[in-house]
């Protein structure tokens, strides 16, 4: 798993455990012993607005924390890359030019699709999915990547493209 995948796992697990626990408390409150005090309806309705504001605040914080991690800008920046790579997908194979690149330097990739929608998935030598980008036929989809470790990177098609979609793979040699 990539670092981002771990971040997702931890954030998601914490949020889910808190949320589900709260709801379980609500369900438990319907047992006889809990029902002696009825909460005031007006109070609960006022709290609804407070809850709405809390949710908006949480979402704004999440937005602020993640909006700058969007890769679009850096992926489309064409300057300063030490090496270039052209990858074209067609049913059901990838063409990689050149087939060998160096590790540890910024690489500009120009991705294309010859026939139908494809998506490029790059798996590092440990099998972690380090990059995925979709491409519709007829456009150039650029992106930037630095291959951190030397070795064989597996390339798989990640957008459904027909009968042999799951066989559409190739490898990229990354040298030190």
């Amino acid at each position, binding site marked *: 798993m990539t670092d981002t995948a771990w971040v997702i796992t931890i954030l998601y697990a914490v949020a889910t455990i808190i949320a589900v626990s709260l709801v379980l408390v609500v369900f438990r409150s319907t047992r006889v012993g809990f029902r002696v005090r009825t909460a005031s309806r007006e109070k609960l309705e006022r709290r609804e607005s407070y809850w709405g504001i809390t949710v908006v605040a949480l979402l704004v914080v999440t937005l602020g924390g993640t909006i700058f*991690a969007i890769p679009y800008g850096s992926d489309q920046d064409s300057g300063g890359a030490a090496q270039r790579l052209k990858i074209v997908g067609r049913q059901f194979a990838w063409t990689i*030019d050149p087939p060998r690149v160096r590790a540890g330097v910024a690489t500009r990739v120009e991705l294309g699709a010859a026939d139908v929608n494809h998506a490029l998935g790059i798996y590092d030598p440990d099998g972690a999915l380090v990059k995925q980008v979709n491409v519709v036929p007829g456009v150039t989809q650029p992106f930037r990547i630095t291959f951190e470790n030397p070795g064989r990177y597996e390339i798989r098609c990640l957008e459904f493209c027909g009968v042999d979609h799951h066989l559409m793979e190739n490898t990229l040699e990354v040298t030190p």
Partner: protein
Amino acid sequence: MEGAAAALGAREAGAVVEESRVKRLVLGYVGASTAFFFVAGLLGMLLRESQADLVRIDPNLFYAIMTAHGLGAFVAWAAFAVMGVSFWVLAEVEFPMRPAGFLLARTAFWTMVVGVVGIVITTLFMGFGASWVFLYPLPFESAGEWSDTATGLFAASVLLTGVSIIAWCLAILDTVTGPGLGSGAGVLNRFGAALGFGYIWRNRFRTSRPLPYPVIPLTVIGIDMVIATLPLAALLVVMIIQSIDPSVTIDSLLAKNMLWFFGHPVVYLLLFPAVAIFYLLIPRYAKKELVAGRAVALAWFVAVIVNVIVWAHHVYLDYPAGSIQDSLNTAMQPLTYAIVLPSAISIYSLSMTVWRSDFEWTPAAKFLAVAIISWLVAGLQGIINATIAFDVVVHNTMWIVGHFHNMALLNIGLVIFAAVYAFLPRLVDREWYSESLANVHLWLTVIGGYGMVLPMLVQGLEGAPRRYAVLPSEYDALTQLTIPFVVMTALGQAVFAFNLIQTLRGRVHPRRETVLRSLGFTASLVAATAILAGTALGLNREGAGESPEKPALGAAGGKSDTASAELFASTCGSCHALKSAGTTGSVGPDLDKLRPDGARVLNAIEQGGAGSGTMPPGLLQGEDAKLVSDYVARVAGK
């Protein structure tokens, strides 16, 4: 008071449809959608079993079944079911249908049934396997697996389901602005009132009684689905024309946006009516009114607008050079966040209605309670998907498949079951055959369902691609772990079917034996599950032993013919036939007939195909290329 008098007058004048006819209409929807559910569920089970190598389905058949399962479970079951139940929800809050709305509702029923039959025929019998999102231009680039005629007929079938959705929307809008509202004012005022504006602007949108909350989400989705379905209909019409006249085409990126302009709101065609069911039933079991103030009406106001402008989160991974797609996608992250509000506020309202109430834990109520938990569990996944920085990790993976099943089966699906358990007695005028069987149904579905969904989520985080007939072997263990849970889920639905049939036949479960029988029945179910699970795992072990592991592509260490054959099969086999490697591809020349020498093969691999020019250069490099060319020269024609 005026409105109520008007409603009464309308009823007396015979301008509303009798309740018995509405009952029959709703029963038709529930019956047909439940039948589609059993078929679509079995197809889904087959897909996962094929991925787990219990039964290996031919790839195109796999993808055709995947197309049928997706549309079948989503549209023909979940959407169709909530569409029908919505009419009953409106009847229960005393919104009678008028003749025009009733006619539209019947039109929606029949166009849906015909459309779904068309989808089944074109996928399962004509081989259309472009997946249920049929991304243009794939439907016309089938690699010889299905014809353009199949594509045209498939598009026409999906168009019929679109027509059904639009007719349903109009039927709902006709009913919510009808006599039930008790608002005498003009048509815009009636729409505003049905959207819950009366809770925000009390003086502007007057009604003779407080608007029942279940009406709001139904009105919201009724408006949005008309807007969302029209562009999809245009795309489908283009596809139908192209299937007859290939010179008519459409831009691929535009087509993708049109598809998702529909594809996002259609998710809420499931969720919003489900919320209406929650709003109706939770207060009933809590024996008090829904705890809701202004905020909930405001949240729905946000929803009706934002729902149709968040589609681009489905194309977060498309940002080609020189297009505005990247700005569009970025703008849609905060907009997608805004659509969290109706869910967040509704969950609050429902929870606070349950809070310290004298809650009646009927089977339907238990289904709803678990559905609220799933709403949170799956909804939080939705926030991750809405966040571009996270979505770039999970977008094309099994995580999305897991999220989807979590939401559609374990939230909305459970609400549908709750509605069936709650409403059927009034629709058919008899009690359920057995309540304890309903509980068995719930627990088998919940345990089986989460056993299915959680491994999908984990596989996705580990990078497992979605929509693969055969997954890379590193994901096999989790796929196989899923199978016992798939079987358990299926058993749960068998229990449901049995209970439903007994109820419809008018059987009554003898009360005093209930506890004993249900204990025995549960025990036998658990035993059956254990046996099936054990068998499944056992079969898997054997299967795993028989099928040779696929070597890492180009593992140059394996000089044997087996390794070369595997390499050939995975890289070249989809286009070239070669008996020795067991491949039958027909795109390129049959190598057993061609019998090329090693140099020619090596040249073709390095430079690409000489003939029609479709074989791309550089499919294999270095030692791998040498290995395969030597191998082909050695075995071709032998």
